C-alpha cells in the first residue's frame, strides 16, 4: 500500500474529521448524539440486582486510555499491527486513568497524534491478503465498488465503533472508501482511508454513556445494550467488545443483569481478562511509576534500571495468580510467603532463582520478615525516596490507597525535612519522632508514620536490613489499635483490617465505572463489599458483582 497521507485522497466528511473532534465538548456531543441515534429500540427495564441498593448513576464519555486504544487496535486488526508510540497522554484522576479519561480533553497535539496513528494503523491493517480477506467481507469488483464499500464499512464499523452504524454514517464512510479508491485506483487503498476515518472518529475514541429510559432507575435511565457491551469489555478486558458481545447487545440481552453476568463470566475466562486485571492493579498501586524508578546508585548498589519493571511484574503475577488461578482470598496477597522472582529479584530476596530466565515462584526465606505486597520490592522501592526509605510515603499508601483513609495534604509552608542521622538519632524512627510529637505534624503523621516504620527493615529499594546506621531497627507499632511487632505482623494486621476489603471494593468500583463515586453510591459499594466478604474475598466474584451492580448498569444525568 502506498502512503495514504501523501496521496491526498478526498477528505472524509467533517463529521469524522478532527476539526470537529478537536473540541472535546463537541466530540462528546457528537459521540453522545451518535450513540443516542443508534439505540432507539428501548426495552422494558429490568429490576436492579437483588440485595444491591440503587444509586445515583453518572453519564459522560470516557476517552480511550492509551492502553485501551492499543488493545482495541490489537483486537480489531491483529497483534502484528504496531500502534505509534506517541498518543495523547493519559491523565490519572483519583488514582485511575479511566477516571481521568472521563474528564480530560484532547490537546491539539493529541488530535494530530490520533490522526497520524490512524493512518499508520490503516496502512498496516490491509497490508496482506489475509488481512484484506479478514476485514473486507466481499470481493470488490472495481476500485469504486460501492456495494462492497458499504458492506466493509458496516461490518468493520460495528466493531470499531462498538455499535451498528446509522445509515447516513455508512453512506458517508462508504463515500470515503470509494472516493479514495477512485483516486488511488485501488479499492483496498480506499478502504484504508475508511479505516483511518473510523479510527479518528469520536465514536471510536470515546465511550459515550448516555443511557436509555428505565423507569426503575433513580435517574430514569439505564445503559443501552451497546453501551453496556463497551462498558463490560473495557472493564473486564480493557479493550473493545468482541463480536459475541456485540451480538448479545444486538439481541437486546445486555439490559438484563443475568445476561450481563453470563457475558461477564465469559469475558473473565478469556486471557484478556488477566491483562485487564493487571492494568487495574497497575493503576491501583501506581506501578506504572516503576518504569522511571530512580535511586541513588552510590547508596543502593543493587539498583539497576531493570529493577522497577521486574518488581512490577512480580506484584502483577502475585495478584493475577491469586485472582485467576488460585481464586482464593485476595487479602492473602498481603501475607503470602510465596512470590514470583527473576534472577535479580531472587538475589535481593536472598532465595535461589529457580530459572535462569524469566519468572518462577519461590518461597521466601523464613528468617527474613518479608511477607506479601508490603514486603515486595515494587511497593518498598516505589514508596521511598531516591536516597532512603520513607515511613511517611509507605504509611500514606497503606492508609489512603489500601484502607481508603483520608489524609489531608501538608500545609504549604511546612518544613517536611527530617533531621540527618546522628549518634543520638540513628534510625528513621528516632529521626521522625518530631513529626509524631509535635501536635501540628502529628495529626496527620500519626496516621502514616507508625505504619511505615513497621517496614523499616527494608531499605529504599526493598532490601532487608536489621540495622540502620548501625542501630538495631525497631519495626514495632500499631495500626488502628492493633499492635504489631514487625513487618510480618504488620502484614497480617493490614490483611485483617476491616477497611481493606471495602476499600478494595471501592477502588474496583471506581475503576469499573470510570467515575468518582458519589455519596449516593456508598450503600451500593457497602453492599458489594459485604458480598465480597461473604464470597471469601474472591476477586472474580467481586468483578462479576460489580458488573451487574446498579452503578454499572444504570445511567444518569451528566455531572
Amino acid at each position, binding site marked *: 500500500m502506498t502512503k495514504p497521507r501523501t496521496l491526498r485522497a478526498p477528505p472524509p466528511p467533517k463529521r469524522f474529521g478532527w476539526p470537529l473532534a478537536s473540541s472535546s465538548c463537541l466530540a462528546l456531543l457528537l459521540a453522545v448524539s451518535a450513540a443516542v441515534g443508534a439505540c432507539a429500540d428501548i426495552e422494558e427495564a429490568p429490576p436492579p440486582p437483588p440485595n444491591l441498593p440503587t444509586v445515583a448513576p453518572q453519564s459522560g464519555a470516557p476517552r480511550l486510555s492509551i492502553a485501551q486504544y492499543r488493545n482495541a487496535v490489537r483486537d480489531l486488526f491483529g497483534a502484528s499491527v504496531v500502534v505509534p508510540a506517541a498518543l495523547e497522554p493519559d491523565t490519572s484522576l483519583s488514582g485511575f486513568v479511566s477516571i481521568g479519561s472521563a474528564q480530560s480533553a484532547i490537546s491539539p497535539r493529541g488530535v494530530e497524534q490520533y490522526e497520524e496513528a490512524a493512518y499508520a494503523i490503516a496502512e498496516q491493517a490491509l497490508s496482506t491478503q489475509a488481512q484484506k480477506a479478514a476485514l473486507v467481507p466481499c470481493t470488490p469488483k472495481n476500485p469504486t465498488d460501492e456495494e462492497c464499500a458499504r458492506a466493509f464499512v458496516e461490518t468493520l464499523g460495528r466493531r470499531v465503533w462498538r455499535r451498528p452504524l446509522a445509515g447516513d454514517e455508512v453512506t458517508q464512510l462508504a463515500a470515503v472508501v470509494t472516493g479514495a479508491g477512485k483516486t488511488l485506483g485501488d479499492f483496498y487503498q480506499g478502504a484504508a482511508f475508511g479505516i483511518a476515518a473510523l479510527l479518528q472518529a469520536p465514536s471510536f475514541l470515546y465511550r459515550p454513556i448516555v443511557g436509555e429510559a428505565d423507569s426503575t432507575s433513580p435517574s430514569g435511565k439505564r445503559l443501552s445494550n451497546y453501551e453496556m457491551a463497551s462498558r463490560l469489555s473495557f472493564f473486564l478486558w480493557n479493550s473493545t467488545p468482541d463480536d459475541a458481545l456485540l451480538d448479545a447487545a444486538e439481541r437486546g440481552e445486555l439490559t438484563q443483569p443475568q445476561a450481563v453476568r453470563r457475558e461477564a463470566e465469559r469475558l473473565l475466562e478469556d486471557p484478556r481478562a488477566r491483562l485487564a486485571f493487571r492494568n487495574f492493579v497497575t493503576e491501583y498501586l501506581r506501578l506504572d511509576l516503576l518504569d522511571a524508578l530512580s535511586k541513588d*546508585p*552510590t547508596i*543502593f*548498589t*543493587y*539498583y*539497576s534500571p531493570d529493577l522497577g519493571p521486574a518488581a512490577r511484574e512480580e506484584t502483577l503475577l502475585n495478584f493475577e495468580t491469586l485472582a485467576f488461578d488460585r481464586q482464593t482470598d485476595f487479602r492473602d496477597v498481603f501475607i503470602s510467603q510465596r512470590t514470583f522472582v527473576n*534472577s*535479580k529479584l*531472587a*538475589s*535481593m*530476596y*536472598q*532465595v*535461589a*532463582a*529457580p530459572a*535462569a530466565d524469566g519468572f518462577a515462584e519461590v518461597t521466601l526465606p523464613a528468617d527474613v520478615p518479608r511477607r506479601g505486597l508490603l514486603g515486595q520490592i515494587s511497593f518498598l522501592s516505589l514508596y521511598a525516596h531516591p536516597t532512603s526509605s520513607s515511613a511517611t510515603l509507605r504509611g500514606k499508601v497503606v492508609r489512603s490507597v489500601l484502607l481508603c483513609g483520608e489524609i489531608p495534604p501538608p500545609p504549604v509552608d511546612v518544613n517536611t525535612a527530617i533531621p540527618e542521622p546522628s549518634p543520638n538519632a540513628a534510625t528513621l524512627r528516632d529521626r521522625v519522632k518530631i513529626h509524631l510529637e509535635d501536635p501540628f505534624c502529628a495529626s496527620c503523621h500519626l496516621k502514616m508514620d507508625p505504619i511505615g516504620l513497621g517496614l523499616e527493615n527494608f531499605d529504599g529499594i526493598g*532490601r*532487608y536490613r*536489621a*540495622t540502620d546506621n548501625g542501630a538495631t531497627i525497631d519495626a514495632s507499632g500499631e495500626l488502628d489499635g492493633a499492635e504489631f511487632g514487625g513487618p510480618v505482623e504488620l502484614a497480617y494486621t493490614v490483611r485483617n483490617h476491616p477497611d481493606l476489603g471495602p476499600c478494595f471494593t471501592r477502588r474496583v468500583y471506581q475503576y469499573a465505572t470510570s467515575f468518582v463515586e458519589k455519596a449516593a453510591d456508598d450503600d451500593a459499594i457497602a453492599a458489594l463489599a459485604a458480598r465480597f466478604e461473604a464470597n471469601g474475598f474472591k476477586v472474580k466474584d467481586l468483578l462479576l458483582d460489580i458488573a451487574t451492580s446498579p452503578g454499572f448498569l444504570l445511567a444518569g444525568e451528566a455531572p
Partner: protein
Amino acid sequence: MAFLPMLKKLRYVAALGMLAASLAPIGGCTDEEPPPETSTAPVSQCGGGAPKSFLISTLGFTRIDETTGKVKGFNLDGVVSDGTDEASCFKKDFVSFSGEKGVDNQLASLIPDVEAILGDAVDGLIQGAINNGGLLIFLTVERADNLQNDDCVDLTVTTVLGKPTLGTNGVIEAYQTFDPDPEGEVSHATGGKIVNGELTIGPFELAIPIAIFDVAFTIHVHDALFKLKLTGEDGVAKEGLLGGGVVPQEILDGVAPGAGVDQYIPVLTLVLNGSTDLEIDEEGTCQQVSAALQITAVEAFLRP
C-alpha cells in the same frame, strides 16, 4: 610484535602464571599418593546443618608490606625458615600481620617486580575473569550447625557457570544463583572448624579451572589451606585467605597453548622455578611455589 600488543599479551600470560602459582603450595601429595585429608566421598561425623554457599567475588594477590615486611599467608610446611634451610630451598619465610612466623608465600615477593613491568593490571585481569563468569569458584560449607563456633564442618569447592550481576559499585552482588558446572572438578575438605565466625579448613587438594582469554586449564593446589569469615552483615562480602602450593610446570603447560604465549614461556619458567620453596625432591629441588590469595566471597546459591 609491536610493543603495546606484546605488553598486553605479556600481561595476561603473566597474570595467568601468577594466578596459577598463587593457587598452590606445599605438601607431599602426588597423584600416586593422595593425602588422607582429601576425599571425593568424605565420611564425616559432623553435624547436619544446612549447607551455606559462597561465591568468590574477588581474588587478589597478597603483597608484602613495604614497611614491616609482613605478608598474609599460611605456614604451609609447618616450619619456620630463615633462608638457610635446604628443605625450603633456602627461601626465607615471612611473618604474618598477626605475628605468626613461618609464612610461606614466595609468590608475594614476585608481585612488585611483576607490577613494575605490567602496572597494576594483573589483579584487574583476574577480576575481569571473575566478573565475566570465567572464574567462578563456589564454596559450600556443610554440616555446620553453628556458623559462629563449630568444631566439625566440611567444605566443597567447585566451579559454577553463570554470568554474575555486578552492583553499581562494580562488585558482584550477593545471593545470586549459579548453575553447576558438569565438567568442573570437585574438591572436598573435611574436619574444618569455625571459631568466632571464621572457618579454617585444610589441607586439602584443590582444583581450580582457569579460563582467561583463550587459555583454559585446571590448576591443582596442593595441601591448600583456607579460611573465611562466615558471619557479618547479610549480603556483605566476607573476607578470606587461600593458600597452597602449585607445581610450576603445571602452570607452564596450562598457559602454553595460548596464542603467542610460547615466546614468554622461558621468562615465566625462570620466574616460577626460581621461587619454588615447597616439596623438595631427592635432588634438592623444590617442586612447588608457595602462594596465598586474599579473597572475598558473597553468599550465593546453586540452582536447584
